[in-house]
């Protein structure tokens, strides 16, 4: 997919692309039979919908959240003990 265009098939099958583009404030041109049909762009208030996290930030969270096997076993035992 070109970064700024999306076909009607892609729109149906990969709507997450649209959500991601809108979250990044990036308008998309909708193509129908390879010709431009419409423009999809975020509403002005969409920018205030919340925070944006970078891939590096998310990767760091995942790294910090990792547990050793021993920690996993301890937590499993702990969860089982919870009322």
């Amino acid at each position, binding site marked *: 997919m070109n970064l700024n265009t999306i076909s009607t098939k892609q729109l149906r099958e990969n*709507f*997450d*692309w649209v*959500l*991601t583009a809108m*979250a990044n404030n990036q308008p998309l041109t909708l193509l129908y039979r390879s010709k431009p049909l419409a423009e999809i762009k975020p509403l002005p208030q969409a920018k205030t*919908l*919340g*925070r*944006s*996290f970078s*891939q590096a930030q*998310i990767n760091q*969270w*995942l790294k*910090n*959240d*990792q*547990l050793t096997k021993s*920690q*996993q076993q*301890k*937590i*499993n035992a*702990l*969860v089982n*003990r*919870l*009322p």
Partner: protein
Amino acid sequence: MPSLTVFLDASVILAGMASPQGGSGFLLQAAKQKKITLIATPLIINEVNRHLAKLKLQSKQLKTLLNRQVIRLIKDPEEIVISRCRRLTADPDDAHVLAGAIVANVNFLLSLDKKHILTKRVKKHLFPIRVLSPKQFWQSLKSF
């Protein structure tokens, strides 16, 4: 409903969905077993939804967590509460997370954001709500 109530930042929900064997993943598992109550706001769920693609996750996985009430939703906090929380964080965009935890009246606020949420200032002002990472949360429960 389990007595242990936990408010989740978007970072924890994303990490839990991406990595079931991480500290955040165990939170989702414990909530599925109804051992703890996990709470978030629509604003936080929106943030999670917008970042799912970065972890190759799908919206339907998030919907399942909500439909099965693994994560329970409360209303977004009022602007007046959010504005009071803005002075507590380096990034005012994080204020709604703190406000959500206050309004939800939970035992814990869990986040993986060391820079803006897991800070001394936030921990001090949100007391008696304990502001921890998921790993710290599990460590704190050892004596539970």
